[in-house]
């Protein structure tokens, strides 16, 4: 689902409120694109990856071994 609207109308706030209302019901991964700066094309994806990283620390990801079937 996409929330679209002119700048300043409150898209981020709406997303924030929605996520706050989901407290404990869902895993939320969030990323943001900056309106300025260079070399930030994949910023949003990077943010999302970071959200995962905070839940399962990088060490766990590195040491992850699939359990035998």
């Amino acid at each position, binding site marked *: 689902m996409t929330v679209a609207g002119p700048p300043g109308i409150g898209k981020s706030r709406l997303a924030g409120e929605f996520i706050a209302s989901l407290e404990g019901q869902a895993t939320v991964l969030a990323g943001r694109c900056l309106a300025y700066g260079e070399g930030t094309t994949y910023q949003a994806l990077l943010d999302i990856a970071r*959200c995962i990283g905070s839940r399962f620390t990088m060490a766990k990801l590195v040491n992850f071994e699939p359990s035998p079937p």
Partner: protein
Amino acid sequence: MVTYAILGPVELSDGERLVSAGGPRQVALLAFLLVHANRAVSADALLDALWGEQPAVVGKRVQMAIARLRKALETAGGGATSPLRTVAGGYLLAVQPGELDAQLFEARLQDGRSALEHGDAPRAAASLREALELWRGPALADLGYEDWARAEIRRLEELRLAAIECRIEADLQCGRHAELVAELQALVAAHPAREQLTEQLMLTLYRCGRQSEALEVYQRTRSHLSYELGLEPGPGLKALQARILAHSDALQRGDDEGGSSARPADEPAASAPTANGEPPAQPRGYARRLVAVLAARANVTDPEALHGVFDRCTAIIEQHGGTVERYLGDALVGFFGLARSNGDDALRAASAAVELRAATTGLRLGIELGEVFIETGARGETIAVGAAISAAGALAERAAADEIMLGADIAQALAGETRVDEKDGRLLEFGADTPAFLRAPQTPFIGRTRPIADLHAELDRVCAQRAAGW
């Protein structure tokens, strides 16, 4: 002597008094002939320009209008032979040097320009003033809506602006900056895209001791260019801003050479493109940027061992996209976002600091965020100055072993990701939590129940579909 004026409403005079050329059509005819002075104009061209497409009706009218204009010109010329001649294929208005104000203007402008080029600013200023005094209003004022007049009006107005820029340049070189501020402010407001005028206003303000206003003008012009046209200011304007920030001596030269177009010889050349063909991040060698600074001090006494520690630290900082610009005694200073902003430089600095602490025992670390001014030298070396650098150094100095201290600005930027001791800025906890923009602020959220309900309905639908085996 007959004189003609087109720098304003079109006028014909006998040298002392105005002579009426006749009605609007007569005036337009005179203007058309003046714009094409000393060149033959065909009767067809006259017809097209002044009467439009109705040749059958108006064929005779051209001859009548020409005859009436001849009379007016004879009155103005005091009985001398008429300058309006019938030539093969049409008519020609012979204009002698000094009779037409536009020609006088262009001659004076030329004088002024060459005087300025030869370094005679006072003479240039005088010539250009004379040139500009010939203007009485918008060029060909009564003919602004005529198609044929537009190109000439544009050309004359362009020359007028050029003359004004030149005159201001000459005045600046004469050290008259105090008188120019008001005039330049009005000109810049009217012509925001003329970067030379903007440069002159910045230089003038700077010389009047108003450097902050000079920099404001730059920012305004920059945002205008970027908003309206998606452009960056030209190299001249950027260089001037950098020299104002650096308080370059070249800006103060008032009475001798060294106006806004003069460039100091010692200015660093544009840096060469990098090896991988990417354009240089800093084409002119100066930049002002928000960066995160990391300072580290090690409690290692042996200098060689210290160097080893710093080598390892540098590797970690570089992994996080930072650069280490210098070692200073037993301190190391790293920057994030120096060459170009990463958008998350505060976070990078904090991550690097946490990793440094884990990798090396006994490090004392300080990080801060702030604006720095960066100069890139001819060989690519950078010098950065700014309060954030010494602030980070002082924080590292205050930190105990294995401790990270955050400055006030970086602590605020990382409010969502870190927990910081409120009293001394010591880092207590660090981890990428929910990004700051998604944490609901404390102010109440009013009147958006419908969109929130829609989002919930959609979420429920998605969940139901998943449960049904989608």
